[in-house]
């Protein structure tokens, strides 16, 4: 038995959450140290998984662990984890966001207003780590039940995290909206997953939630039947693809179900925004890929046009709405809608380039938006406003934050030599192969993005510091700098050397393409 590294990664934050709860509430620094140690440990292991992942093997999933969880009658649930080329980068991403999120939340009790999380850090980190454990879990799950199990664990702490530590003005509304949207999406997908379970079971005689088995059943034709859909006989995959894909894609912020996401971003405290935009939205896109596209490939082919339509609208509309925002967080929130639209755009192509790009974009956007929110949080903690017109000249008191934001902005614009370009380019190439007009329309967003990012950088970071903020902007801590530097380095490294990640994602894409029937 090999070292169960994936389980250790998943359970590290969960165990840490419990440990943190056992620390007395007033020992804030012990709480934070525990959190930091746990996150470093998880990060180190996820880096190890990433490095050890054998790209050329083409064997599908690696680091597999499997245990029977429940096997009664025709219910069979496994604890089954493993990573492929698609999920290994996302595990790494989660590790990074967790690590930087802890750094950012450390903060200090500044006379001009506390930064980071100073109110009840114990509960904060406990919930945050519960969330992180859920996220890790979804990325490594190879069992449908397990996936839902972790998916819900990843969703509900968001409610508390936003409602308790969020932005006073909108937190209750936003937290509830977010939770309900995501919950609706996930249970709709759950019904689809159950339908798959029974259909595959009836066809093969082995009832199991194991996704690999279900996938085998699908390849053997288990999902090729017709189902009665309000009197009409419709292919199974056609009926169930949309609920499953869209149910998950809600969390991916797909238009027109994106509405919860900017509100959630805005209301959430910094580290949660980082998690939310950086990792959670990927969770939706990833689950939509893993369960929707990979288990129902024919349905995916049938509905690809619709997903592409949604994605095209999201890309352009998100960018446009971001352009007219005056609140920095809303701007980033809508830019996330736009960028996650690109992920969906890539997924909807169902070809090698598009899927590779989508995988890269998930990672790139995760890092970028984590950085954006981190910087925005630093500014808000100090200036107590996020209104772009009320800010200015932040590069003087906060040079690190400014440089970080600029690099993030360049990534966001899809500037070459930054990870955004490396990710977006293949997506567009993928779309070219199926629907050139969509690529042309979506490309408008690039210019809009450039406009709002540049505008924001200029107005927030350059010019004069407003008189009322003069002298109130305390410098950021060394930990903040570490977080910013980590995130920036990743984006530049991936932009300069796409081969750090692209081959791995391609190895994952290869197996998806096999499911989709050759190519």
């Amino acid at each position: 038995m090999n070292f169960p590294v994936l389980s250790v990664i998943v359970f590290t934050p969960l165990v840490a959450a419990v440990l943190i709860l056992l620390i007395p509430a007033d020992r804030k620094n012990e709480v934070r140290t525990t959190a930091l140690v746990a996150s470093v440990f998880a990060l180190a292991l996820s880096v190890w998984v990433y490095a050890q992942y054998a790209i050329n093997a083409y064997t599908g999933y690696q680091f597999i662990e499997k245990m029977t969880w429940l096997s009664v009658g025709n219910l069979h649930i496994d604890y089954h984890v493993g990573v492929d080329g698609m999920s290994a980068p996302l595990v790494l991403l989660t590790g990074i966001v967790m690590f930087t999120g802890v750094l950012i939340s450390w903060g200090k009790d500044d006379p001009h207003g506390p930064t980071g999380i100073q109110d009840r850090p114990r509960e904060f980190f406990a919930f945050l780590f519960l969330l992180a454990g859920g996220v890790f879990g979804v990325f490594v799950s190879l069992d449908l039940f397990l996936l839902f199990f972790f998916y819900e664990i990843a969703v509900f702490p968001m409610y508390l995290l936003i409602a308790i530590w969020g932005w006073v003005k909108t937190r209750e509304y936003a937290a509830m909206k977010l939770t309900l949207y995501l919950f609706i999406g996930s249970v709709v997908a759950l019904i689809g997953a159950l339908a798959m379970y029974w259909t595959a079971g009836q066809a093969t005689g082995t009832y199991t939630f194991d996704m690999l088995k279900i996938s085998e059943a699908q390849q053997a034709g288990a999902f090729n039947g017709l189902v009665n859909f309000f009197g009409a006989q419709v292919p199974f995959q056609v009926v169930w693809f949309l609920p499953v894909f869209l149910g998950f894609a809600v969390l991916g912020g797909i238009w027109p179900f994106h509405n919860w996401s900017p509100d959630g971003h805005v209301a959430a405290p910094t580290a949660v925004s980082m998690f939310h935009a950086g990792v959670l939205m990927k969770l939706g896109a990833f689950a939509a890929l893993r369960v929707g596209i990979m288990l129902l490939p024919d349905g995916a082919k049938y509905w690809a046009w619709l997903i592409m339509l949604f994605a095209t609208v999201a890309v352009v509309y998100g960018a446009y709405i971001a352009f007219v925002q005056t609140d920095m967080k809303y701007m980033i929130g809508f830019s996330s809608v736009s960028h996650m639209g690109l992920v969906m755009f890539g997924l909807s192509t169902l070809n090698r380039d598009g899927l590779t790009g989508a995988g890269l974009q998930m990672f790139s956007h995760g890092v970028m938006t984590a950085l954006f929110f981190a910087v925005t949080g630093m500014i808000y903690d100090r200036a107590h406003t996020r209104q772009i017109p009320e800010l200015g000249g932040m590069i003087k008191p906060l040079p690190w934050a400014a440089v970080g934001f600029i690099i993030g902005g360049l990534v966001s614009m899809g500037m070459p030599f930054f990870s955004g370009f490396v990710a977006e380019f293949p997506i567009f190439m993928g779309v070219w192969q199926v629907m050139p007009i969509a690529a042309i329309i979506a490309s408008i967003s690039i210019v809009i993005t450039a406009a709002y990012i540049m505008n924001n950088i200029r107005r927030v970071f350059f010019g004069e510091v407003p008189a009322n903020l003069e002298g109130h902007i305390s410098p950021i801590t060394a930990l903040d700098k570490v977080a910013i530097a980590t995130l920036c380095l990743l984006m530049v490294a991936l932009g300069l050397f796409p081969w750090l990640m692209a081959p791995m994602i391609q190895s994952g894409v290869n197996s998806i393409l096999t499911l989709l029937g050759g190519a």
Partner: protein
Amino acid sequence: MNFIYEHLLLVILFFPTLAALVMLFLPAGENKLLRWFAFGASLVPFILSVWLWTQFDPNAVGYQFEAQYPWYQALNSSLHLGMDGLSLTMVMLTTLLTPIALLASFSINDRVKGYMMLFLFLETGMLGVFMAVDLLIFFVFWEVGLVPMYFLINQWGSPKGEREVRSIFGKFTMSARNYASLKFMIYTMGGSLGLLLAVQMLGVLFGNYDLQYITANWSNYSKDLMGISVSTVKTVAFWAFVIAFAVKVPLWPFHTWLPDAHTEAPTAGSMILAGVLLKLGAYGFLRLVLPLYPAEAKYFAGALAFLATAAIVFGAFASFGQTDFKRLVAYSSVNHMGFVVLGIAAAASAVGTQDATIALNGAVLQMFNHGLSAAGMFFLVGVIYERTHTRNLDDFGGLFPLVPVYGGILIFTSMASLGLPGLNGFISEFLVVRGSLPLLPVYTAISMLGLLMTGAYILKGIKQVLHGPLNEHWAHGEHKLTEINTREILVMAPLMVLILVIGLWPAWILDVINKAMMMLF
């Protein structure tokens, strides 16, 4: 040494970046150290490219010093560098102008570190475009150069001035340099959108981005694409390319970003902008448009020539109408770059003929020459602006007696720009006109009108600055105009020497260009 030789292009390309990264760790306050370091670092690529020039074999077909490094295998794109006569000329121009521009920037005192680093990044960006033999890499460097330039204008541009902007979001005011930099960014990015899409289409079509491969296969590609006839696709893609490059050149009517950007940019920024960045567009025409779309280029040569002529004429008239010295020079760039495109258009209409080759020679030499003279002119404007803090021509007058050396240099450079025989501008403009006249007589004739106006506006500029009644304001007291200093003369010296050398003995460079053109087309 052997290593450097084998990877010469790579070293030239990334040395500035490397230097910039080293600068990151230098102390921020030590302006003198930072300046000299940056200047010294930028000399290395220059020396190496001089060496490159000596090692270059003008008679060899195809790319030389070729080197290929893995970059993005997933897309079959690699960092594929290579050098022919055309790129060599441009690389030479770039590596020459960068140290000069850095030397010219020694008067910058604000955030020297950031400024110098951006400049070095910019150099890598420009060099990459000229060296790329991979379509994706070409695009990558094409875009990446925007960012440093944006920040140079935005942060170190002239702090004065406000612009009222009317947009779909209503009316608001922003500072002139913000306006200019944003306009520069949006125009160029918007222009390259079509290029991006067209590049993607080609990449998807051929499964790789190798320029030679695509050039060989695309020009005679004849299957229908995406259900649309190939000629339509090619026409659309042709215009996508053309617009991207036309914005950069800039051609009328895509030129409006240029006066703003030039006017607001810091002096050295303007020098590089006019000296090298505009050439990127013309280079794109030569490297991509003509080889990839020979048929379309021929078909639309008239349209291109029309745009070029419009740029020449309108540029000249606009220049004449300016009261701002820097804007005058900026519009002169529109005018001069028009000749480059005119030559290219003429050549496109009859590729392979002797006239076409002459026109192309003229165009490429004009690119080089304009790089020298425009950089010089912008620098000289900068010199006087630094002393007087005004660029308004009406504020000057009769300054020659006060600053005779400066006056002499200004007149010399202006004459080069004007096309005085014996200086470089004459040679290239003559070649363009000589090549174009038989091919596009009407447009060439009209553009001669523009040439006339060129003389008019340059003389107007000289007259208003140096001659006429002396503006007493500059003669005495604290406003007394000081003479050009040694560093500034050192900046101008190499430019003036080259202007004169090419004017008198152009063969050394024309030989390289001519052979490259013969082989390319």
